[in-house]
């Protein structure tokens, strides 16, 4: 097997793909909550992705990605047997599973469920009572339902439009559980920044410690460039070496939301350019 070879490629949805990458050293070391950085080709950008799961025996690291930009589209064009150009990790501090108490709610939003899943699984394996709330826009976008079901005590599926499971956001489901009398020692929220912000707003009212997994823009991801800085409790923290997990009640979400939009125009242009090039190929 070659370094960074794609061992398995499995489309989960038309726009979401799972890949297992051969990287035995990373597979051996990685823990829930850590991430890798990949590059598709020699001139590619560095993109961070949280590790979905690892298999030490087979030496593989699994990533789940949404085809949102030019680089993830390019990644999706690679097939089993082909290799990524670069694959580095495990980066970041693992999620502090041990300190979360006996009963934990894990809230995943959309593609964020791919990250919520390994954390729920690690908690569950550590003997914690885990309520996994998985929110999607609609039924067609649901991923990993079976895997998530096996990784928690109780799985609460939700859809924004109500065509599957609970009708409402993950936040609404969490509020419902709390109001029903569930006492959570800790809440973990992973997904779009807006969703994490609202989960934190809610858990603050209920005074439940809350961990969020930050996904700021990164460049080197190893503690050198400072791009991924986040203000936490008034202090500058770096998601790549201090995070990606932070105390959600202390994070300045609005700042991260603005920073994450810095390159929207560039990204949109790159994506369109890439799609045009692909179309050109098929036409020819």
């Amino acid at each position, binding site marked *: 097997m070659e370094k960074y070879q794609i061992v398995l490629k499995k489309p989960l949805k038309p726009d979401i793909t799972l890949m297992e990458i051969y990287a035995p*050293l990373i597979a051996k070391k990685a823990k829930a909550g850590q991430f890798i950085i990949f590059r598709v080709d020699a001139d590619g950008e560095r993109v961070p992705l949280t590790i979905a799961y690892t298999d030490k025996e087979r030496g593989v690291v699994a990533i789940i990605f949404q085809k949102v930009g030019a680089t993830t589209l390019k990644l999706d064009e690679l097939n089993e047997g082909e290799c990524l150009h670069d694959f580095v990790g495990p980066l970041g501090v693992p999620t502090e599973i041990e300190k979360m108490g006996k009963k934990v709610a894990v809230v995943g939003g959309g593609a964020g469920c791919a990250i919520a899943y390994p954390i729920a699984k690690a908690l569950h394996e550590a003997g914690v009572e885990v309520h996994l709330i998985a929110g999607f826009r609609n039924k067609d976008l649901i991923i990993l339902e079976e895997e998530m079901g096996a990784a928690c005590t109780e799985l609460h599926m939700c859809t924004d439009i109500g065509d599957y499971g609970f009708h409402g956001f993950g936040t609404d489901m969490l509020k419902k559980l709390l109001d029903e009398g569930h006492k959570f020692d800790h809440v973990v929220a992973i997904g779009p920044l807006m969703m994490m912000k609202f989960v934190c707003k809610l858990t603050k009212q209920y005074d439940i410690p809350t961990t969020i997994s930050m996904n700021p823009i990164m460049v080197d991801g190893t503690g050198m460039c400072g791009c991924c800085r986040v203000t936490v409790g008034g202090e500058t923290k770096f998601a790549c070496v201090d995070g990606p997990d932070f105390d959600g009640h202390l994070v300045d979400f609005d700042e991260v939301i603005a920073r994450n939009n810095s390159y929207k125009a560039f990204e949109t242009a790159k994506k369109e350019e890439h799609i045009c090039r692909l179309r050109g190929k098929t036409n020819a």
Partner: protein
Amino acid sequence: MPNMSLTKVKMTEQEPNVRNANFLEVAQGYTLEQAKEEADRCLNCKNPMCVQGCPVSVPIPQFIAKIKEDDLAGAYKILSNANALPAVSGRVCPQETQCESKCIRGIKGEPVAIGRLERFVADWARENGVANLETAEKNGHRVAVIGSGPAGLTCAGELARKGYDVTVFEALHVAGGVLSYGIPEFRLPKEIVNKEVENLVKMGVKIETNMVIGKVLSIDELFEEMGFEAVFIGSGAGLPMFARIPGESLCGVYSANEYLTRINLMKAFRGAENCDTPVLESKSVAVIGGGNVAMDAARCAKRMGAKEVHIVYRRGEAELPARKEEVHHAMEEGIIFDFLTAPVSIEGDEKGRACKLNCIKMELGEPDASGRRRPIPVEGSEFAIEVDTVIPSLGTSPNPLIRSTTPGLDTNKKGCIVTAENGATSRNAVFAGGDASTGAATVILAMGAGKTAAASIDEYLRNK
């Protein structure tokens, strides 16, 4: 007869108004004739002071004598035996405070242009396919080098020459460290860095990229599981420091490290159509700080198309920590220097992009602990610079990944690895050098530390 001209032979440079719009090298090197003319200025002193000023002890008069004799291969051999990266240090060394500051010719007139001659010889070798790849017989001892910047590459080269089996672990996707991500193309073309690395590989050095030591492998694992007998830590400077003023998280605020990394390492200098890594377009830029990195960031900003680029520095021109040559080049290229100016806050527009840097004028008071006169704010002197990009370039603090995963490795209050003069750390068989132990310093000091540590590692393993 020596050439008694009081001035150095001039090196051709791109015109300031041409070069500030491209990333090609500013200084274009000597021709053979120019090199020989300059070499003739060297008096070949019996007791050469210049060598004492060199952190890697290059036998300067000897290599210059070979240039005079037209024996460039001989010159390269002498040079490269002492210095693993001559094409690099010939370009980025602050010779004016090192070898050239001790040159006897500098007492009356300009010193011998040692740096330019070093560069000339190294470039000649590269362009003519000459390399110095000789190594002692392989001794089978394995050494791990963490980081492939100037300290790590030098240490690796020295050890390979002595016959050791060396593996360099690099966290990023290419080797070179700050030579690749930090120093811009127009000062140090990456082709030159790649060639120096290639030569090390030809000498048997293995380079493993994408390996973050402290994460994927700990130092203990390098010894216990991987079978290395000694480790050199040259992991470099770490996280950027910020000015701690309001607004530093706005869009359009980059640490100098991030800005330079996007442009150099990720190749944004090629333009948006030829690069996948974005860098925001800037019309007006303020770089905060006065070091070499600040000069690099400002000069890159100009080349990326900014109409107006400011260097905002709280002390005066005389106190600038950057090399004189860099300051001079920046001024020629149209960088605006706002001396005795301190940043107060950054304001953002409705989209969250920086739009204004509020500043205050300073005056210099009594000298502080660093010996430099302390800047004091002048009351009522507040003013603003209209900018869309702000680049704090205020130094770095060491990366925590290795110290936090290596039990028994002593670090100081600032987080720098504590080393003895020979590079030894508090851990047996672990040596360190460069910015990881000194905090942010120069390429040549890191190379010197790498060379010293290599000698110590050799001694340690021979006596083991």
